[in-house]
């Protein structure tokens, strides 16, 4: 048995995406900056992909800067706009991905920075945002659209209005939202937005920063001047083509995919609630349709995950990017969750190929393991 419930960490590449990518490794391999006809074939492919990515998020193709992934796009958003605009301060929510929090903290001692608190559902505390927006002169606020661990979807539009009304700028990390909910760059009203292909069945190693033209972005990678000077380096043509195809598939199948994922989530959580003493994080929040983050108090999350892995079930205790450390999830800590409860957290993130049968199998394994750990004996 092999069950993969860790799609927020990585998704398998869609076969249709692979089919689009392969010709750009083998037949149309030229450098898109070359002026000969083969070079122009590669250039055209990039242009098409740029349109596909732009269409998915309702942006103009000229607003798309291709990067090597979400982390680079987040770095570019913050460092690039900070330097380009000469901003006076930075803030981000306390539940951001490390590629935001670490970048913000990098400016410790040089640029005033802070973190916005969240409530027990993982929502950013609006009053805290209002306060800092009144205090700072020109601020960049970075708030993720959907959290990778809890799946909580922020009310970005409302928060953005707070910041914009005071003349501040907003970045949103939308990496986890794409393919699971509609993402409209214009409607969200943000200035900068990060997306990444491998979270929605595209290839790893390619992402994009979408930017509003009112923002002067300074490049963080210098060289040949690709991406209108905003990101140098020979373009990853096959990766970009795959990104484009994955974007167009995500866009055209969104409703169908959402429905499928929501069905799985509902089914899963119904079964989950039948287990005794389960804590479901952000239970009442507006969450991504594929993400369920819960805890079985009394167990060590990592130990249970290892046992589940031996039974062929792949899950995680939180973000893959932080999974090396033994610390409890910073997201749960920010939500005020008890440390012991946080240490027994398990994240389930469904993908398009998951089935209810897999969920049934998962619960058989889980109940068995919890029994072995002596946790269900009292009740059974």
């Amino acid at each position, binding site marked *: 048995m092999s069950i993969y419930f860790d799609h927020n960490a990585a998704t398998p590449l869609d076969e249709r995406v692979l089919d689009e990518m392969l010709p750009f490794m083998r037949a149309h391999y030229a450098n898109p*900056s070359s002026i000969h006809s083969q070079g122009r074939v590669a250039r055209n492919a990039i242009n098409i992909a740029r349109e596909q990515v732009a269409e998915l998020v309702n942006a103009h193709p000229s607003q798309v800067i291709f990067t090597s992934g979400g*982390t680079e796009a987040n770095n570019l958003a913050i460092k690039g706009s900070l330097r380009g605009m000469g901003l006076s301060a930075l803030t981000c929510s306390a539940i951001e991905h490390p*590629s935001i929090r670490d970048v913000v903290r990098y400016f410790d001692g040089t640029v005033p920075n802070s973190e916005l608190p969240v409530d027990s559902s993982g929502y950013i505390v609006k009053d805290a945002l209002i306060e800092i927006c009144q205090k700072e002169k020109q601020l960049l606020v970075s708030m993720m659209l959907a959290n990778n661990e809890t799946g909580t979807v922020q009310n970005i539009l409302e928060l953005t209005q707070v910041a914009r009304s005071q003349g501040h700028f907003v970045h949103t990390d939308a990496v986890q939202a794409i393919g699971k909910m509609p993402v409209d760059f214009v409607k969200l009203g943000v200035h900068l937005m990060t997306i990444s292909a491998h979270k929605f069945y595209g290839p790893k190693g390619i992402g994009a920063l979408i930017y509003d033209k009112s923002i002067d972005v300074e490049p963080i990678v210098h*060289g040949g001047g690709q991406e209108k000077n905003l990101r140098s380096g020979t373009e990853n043509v096959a990766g970009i083509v795959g990104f484009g195809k994955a974007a167009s598939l995500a866009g055209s199948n969104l409703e169908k995919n959402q429905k499928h994922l929501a069905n799985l989530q509902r089914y899963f959580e119904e079964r989950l609630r039948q287990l005794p003493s389960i804590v479901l994080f952000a239970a009442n929040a507006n969450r991504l349709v594929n993400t369920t983050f819960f805890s079985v108090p009394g167990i060590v999350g990592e130990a249970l995950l290892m046992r589940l892995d031996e039974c062929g079930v792949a899950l995680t205790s939180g973000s893959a990017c932080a999974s090396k450390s033994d610390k409890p999830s910073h997201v749960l800590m920010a939500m005020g969750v008890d440390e012991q409860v946080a240490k027994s957290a398990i994240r389930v993130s469904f993908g398009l190929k998951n089935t209810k049968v897999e969920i049934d199998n998962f619960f058989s394994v889980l109940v068995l393991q919890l029994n072995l750990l002596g946790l269900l004996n009292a009740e059974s």
Partner: protein
Amino acid sequence: MKLPIYLDYSATTPVDPRVAEKMCNCLTMGQNFGNPASRSHQFGWEADDAVKNARKQVADLINADSKEIVWTSGATESNNLAIKGIAHFYHKKGKHIITCKTEHKAVLDTCRQLEREGFEVTYLDPEANGLVDLKKLESAIREDTILVSLMHVNNEIGVVLDIEAVGELTRSKGIILHVDAAQSAGKVPIDLKKMKVDLMSFSAHKIYGPKGMGALYVRRKPRVRLEAQMHGGGHERGMRSGTLATHQIVGMGEAFAIAKAEMATENERLHTLRNRLYDGIKDMEEIYLNGDEESRIAGNLNVSFNFVEGESLIMALKDVAVSSGSACTSASLEPSYVLRAIGRNDELAHSSIRFSIGRFTTEEDIDYSIKLIRDKVEKLRDLSPLWEMYKDGIDLSKIQWAAH
């Protein structure tokens, strides 16, 4: 023979079928698609194993330790990370950097950025053969020099710098040496146990691996430290964050392993083909070889066809894909800054063509190209009034052109 013939291997290469096969094993459902940073399940561990294996393959080609390899998105990022990383880490020791005018844009533009940040950069003039004179390098070194950045093989003219000698000099002075090896890996032997290089940049797509993938070698003994340029997650021992793209990494590893196994025989073949190409055109009038004749990689031939405009020749040679120099600067109509730096005048710099031969080039490709080049150069010269004047024995350099 398949048209068009690709003679632009220095710009980029096709992914070797053996590499593509390995990459495809790391992408889709049922294959090794996991996130190598996932520590709690088989999918993650398998991806991590593949990354480890590739790290060893890359290290093996250059006789380094796996732990000295940092994955990046390509040589441009590697060059940025090396140069800015060193500058930002060691700025208290000094703020002077030495490089050369013929470096790749990724080095030059990064240095320009550092100048804006208050660093001082010396841009050495290369000799007429395209190589840096070590004595000139030595005399450019100052008290506050922290870094020397020089390329191993030039992307336009293919000349090979004696890195071992440079390393002896910089190490004896206690200065960090960074080498851009994007164009040399897999083409020239690299032994980092012998070469006193502290940082070295690599690219996958120049040696039949995928685009968007590179590495930076960071020496551990003596240890070199750098400031990360990409933050978040702390991947690559804190030097470069971001989800590792397993398929890209595996592709780079396989490309490097193939290069290690086949470099010697491949070089011999490329050398023969390159000489065949040069022999086929060198009797033409007014053609000039750019860069040292001996100290250059087997696959490169850079020639100026006087009285022919390079871009026009590229267009005329429709069936043969070549470039006038670096792809990264080919959108501009400026003459090659590399050729200008080695002392070529504007006319010759404007009339250069870089032929770069690679793994899938055949003898027929070369013979066809020779015929086409001879034919098209002759046609273009027939249309050129300058050529006519030259043939009439007029010394063009003495003409006073009137402005209109």
